């Protein structure tokens, strides 16, 4: 039951099948990494799991702690405990970070409950300090006018505040400078615990030096082609994806 378990997942968009029978299991307490060439379907996988309505799932299942999430509404999946740090976070003009996260937390409470504002801000400021985000950001509109790196940090801030059971980080390291990469990695590492499963999607082995994965998967044409330990990332970096192709043909 303590898994995010994806079985034979097939999904398409505009009659093009992107996920072609994907299998992947992320147990709580582990960090898995997915690497794979551009266009292999990594972001598609994360959006399908998050319930994006543009993708049509033709077969398969995705069980979050035993509960089927395919076909559920995006907000219900979120409240069930799946968080997606977007590869390209969206702007929400006029809505401050503080109000946005607060609304998200409030949405997790029962109808007659109100979020304790004092406790909320205490938590928010603590997480911001850890992630090196200036407190002025609380009143800025979500992602509006943020630099690429600021957007990614803001994603991690939201993740830290929402405390999900499963996290998918889609190229959170892209666009981060070296210092920011360490800070974000530290933020993610702090969230590692036996009750949480984490999936990081990345193109760079460097991130995995800071967030050391339990397993590394290679995504290839809409499926998981190879699975190994953290050494696989090094091998990939050294040999490139042509090597994967050769392995697959062999």
């Amino acid at each position, binding site marked *: 039951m303590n898994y995010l378990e994806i079985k034979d997942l097939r999904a398409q968009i505009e009659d093009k099948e992107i996920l072609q029978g994907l299998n992947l299991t992320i147990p709580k307490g582990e960090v898995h990494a997915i690497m794979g060439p551009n266009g292999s379907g990594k972001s598609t996988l994360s959006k399908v799991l998050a319930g994006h309505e543009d993708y049509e799932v033709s077969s398969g299942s995705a069980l979050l702690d035993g509960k089927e999430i395919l076909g559920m509404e995006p907000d219900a999946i979120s*409240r069930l405990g799946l968080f997606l740090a977007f590869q390209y976070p969206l*702007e929400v*003009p006029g809505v401050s970070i503080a109000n946005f996260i607060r*609304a998200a937390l409030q949405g997790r409470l029962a109808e007659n409950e109100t979020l304790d504002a004092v406790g909320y801000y205490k938590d928010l400021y603590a997480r911001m300090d850890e992630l090196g985000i200036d407190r002025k950001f609380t009143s800025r509109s979500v992602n509006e006018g943020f630099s690429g790196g600021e957007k990614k940090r803001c994603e991690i801030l939201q993740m830290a505040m929402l405390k999900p059971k499963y996290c998918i980080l889609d190229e959170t390291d892209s666009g981060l400078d070296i210092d920011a990469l360490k800070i974000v990695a530290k933020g993610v590492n702090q969230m590692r615990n036996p009750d949480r499963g984490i999936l990081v999607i990345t193109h760079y082995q460097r991130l995995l030096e800071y967030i050391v994965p339990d397993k590394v998967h290679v995504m290839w044409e809409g499926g998981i082609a190879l699975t190994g330990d953290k050494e696989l990332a090094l091998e990939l970096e050294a040999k490139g994806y042509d090597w994967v192709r050769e392995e697959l043909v062999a």
Partner: protein
Amino acid sequence: MIQPTKIDVDRDKGNFRYETDYQYDAGVGLREEVVQYISEVKGEDEWIRDYRLKALDTFFRKPMPTHWATKDLENIHFDKIRYYLAKGQQPSRTWEDVPDDVKQTFERLGIPEQERKFLAGVEAQFDSEAAYSRMKVELEKEGVIFVGSSDGLKDHPEIFRKWFGKVIPASDNKFSALNAAVFSGGSFIYVPPGVKLAQPLQAYFRINAENFGQFERTLIIADEGAELTYMEGCTAPKFETATLHSAVVELVAMPGAKIQYITVQNWSNNVFNLVTKRAMAHEESEVRWIDCNIGSRLTMKYPGVILKGRKARGEVLSIALANDGQHQDTGAKMVHAADETTSNIIAKSISIGKGRSSYRGLVQIPGHLRNCRNNTECDALLINANSRTDTYPAITVRGNGNAVQHEASVSKLNAEQIFYMRQRGLTESDAVSLSVNGFVNDLIREFPMEYSVELKRLIDMEMEGSVG
């Protein structure tokens, strides 16, 4: 969702109604006798009765403005409307004096709560007559007059007559003529020189009779250096047949005075709301209209300022929300008539479903004036694919020493943005509400706290069920 729980005004679209017996009823349809009847019931002087009758004549002669406005105006059946209904008793000053059925309505509107919190005076209109009004003793001591328009006319003719119909003549447009003929209710306010009211003055009113048009008339005069904020809010019950609401509001800001006039309106879907609002701003005075239009079948409203004195400043901040079956035709009018006058217009509109919002602006700066400035911004947000917006800015600026700045934008609610918000756990309707609140946020920040909270709640309620 952020819960705006602070305020206790129940405005759940006003689809409730109480039985009320009317002592005075002018009957159905519009004739000279109806106008005579209204004037008689109110015990008015001859000059005002003649004014009404002349206005009625003007109303009959003026064509419907359908050459520029929507054809929907033709669906107003003037012969099926009641032009005057009243309970008959004098406006009362204490809560205890208010009749029970009226009280029931006010309780639903949350007025006593409001009053305790921040009201300086309450002048609430129940149908045609002010049924409940009260003023704080301090206001009276300072010489501030805050009464219903009929009382203003009766008890303060020397001020009333001087300004009545001067900013908006009866002949201004067809509906100002109608109002001049049959007006009743509304507020009369006079603030003496140098008196600055820290607390806003408030009026609540609502329509509660089928086929009954409401024609209130408000006249506010801020004498030299005086300052006041007036707040107006409305809810109306839901009816089968169309209801006409046609108010006239005149403001006079004497030199150095400041007037802020705030409206949050939430009419039911069958109301035609055709309002003329205009201010005369004398030297170095400031007038600000804050106008929020939610609901109604058709709203036509373009608050204006005539910048008559040097360095006068006029401002219109407006928010319009058009839902299915609604047309918000709103805007602003700035007539610069002196040097160094400035005006600012910020209009935001939201169209939901098949709702339609139109912005109509008029800015005039004649060539002989110097150093006048206007800034106009209008932004439209479309929620659904079939939502509609249009913009008709008319800016006439002559002369070299004057500057105008005009910006307009139309944006569509972004599906990816909603997905992003839902991924954080917000329901679709909460995500849409929050986005819409975000769209109007910078403008709402300019509003007094109580109203911004209430407005956000109104927007949330309008957004419910608009998606999915």
